[in-house]
């Protein structure tokens, strides 16, 4: 296990604390000060103890630019999800069923497993694509309407708008 710098530790600690505190507030559903103080102390202790354990999901939160890109990514993703639904609706309701299925592959520039998982999930929820497997940095994508089998062109069509933003976040 690699040694963590103080900054990385602080990042993980703050992410865990904020997340746990949000869950606490959601479940207790009260802002009475005794409840909030007990929740803050408990979640602080838990997140302090779990700093060396959570290794997957580090996001560099100390630069505000990344926070902005995370929100931007959320909107890009939501727009793609709505587009995907209208795409499915159009295909399903057309009597001739316009599909041309196949599996294509492409390579990604993302490094960390967490970033790859976010990209794969986003690809699954965007129009006409479903991620089948990730091996190393190669994605295998089932495409309902194959326009090209060339990896570079497929990458441009499927993943480029997401990857541009994700490279700025991670």
């Amino acid at each position, binding site marked *: 296990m690699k040694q963590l710098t103080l900054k990385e530790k602080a990042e993980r600690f703050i992410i865990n604390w904020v997340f746990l505190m949000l869950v606490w507030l959601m479940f207790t559903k009260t802002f009475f000060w005794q409840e909030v103080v007990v929740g803050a102390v408990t979640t602080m202790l838990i997140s302090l103890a779990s700093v060396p354990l959570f290794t997957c999901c580090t996001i560099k939160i100390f630069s505000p630019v990344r926070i902005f890109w995370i929100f931007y990514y959320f909107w890009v993703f939501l727009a793609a999800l*709505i587009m995907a639904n209208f795409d499915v609706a159009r295909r399903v309701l057309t009597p001739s*069923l316009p599909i041309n299925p*196949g599996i*294509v592959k492409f390579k990604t520039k993302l490094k960390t497993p967490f970033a790859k998982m976010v990209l794969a999930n986003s690809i*699954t929820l965007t129009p006409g694509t*479903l991620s089948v497997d990730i091996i190393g940095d190669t994605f295998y994508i089932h495409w309902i309407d194959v326009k090209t089998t060339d990896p570079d062109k497929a990458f441009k069509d499927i993943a480029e708008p997401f990857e541009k933003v994700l490279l700025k976040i991670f």
Partner: protein
Amino acid sequence: MSAMEIIGAILLLIGSAFLFLGGLGIYRMPDTYNRLQAGTKATTLGAMSLILGVGFLEPSWMIKTLIIIIFIAYSNPISSHALARANYKRKHFPLILHGDVKEMDAYREVTEKEENKEEKK
């Protein structure tokens, strides 16, 4: 009717419409992968919209419905990915309508490599 109730009712309507389209897609599509495509996307937005609509109708449940929406948005694509991958490992190959099978199915080379390894052992 208050504005909240109208928004909630509209969201319920949108959600059920997308869920219906997802069901129709599962019925009409020719093979597992295409069915997963239709099923995943339509049910994700459909269920999210439906649950958000319930949240608008009962404002005291709003926070819990938001948690459920986050879990659905996270778990739905993962489960469909797992289903697609498991289906391929069981050698149910995707339907290819046009073009060369080798070229259109880029994942076949990976499974063939794994098979060769097992045979050597």
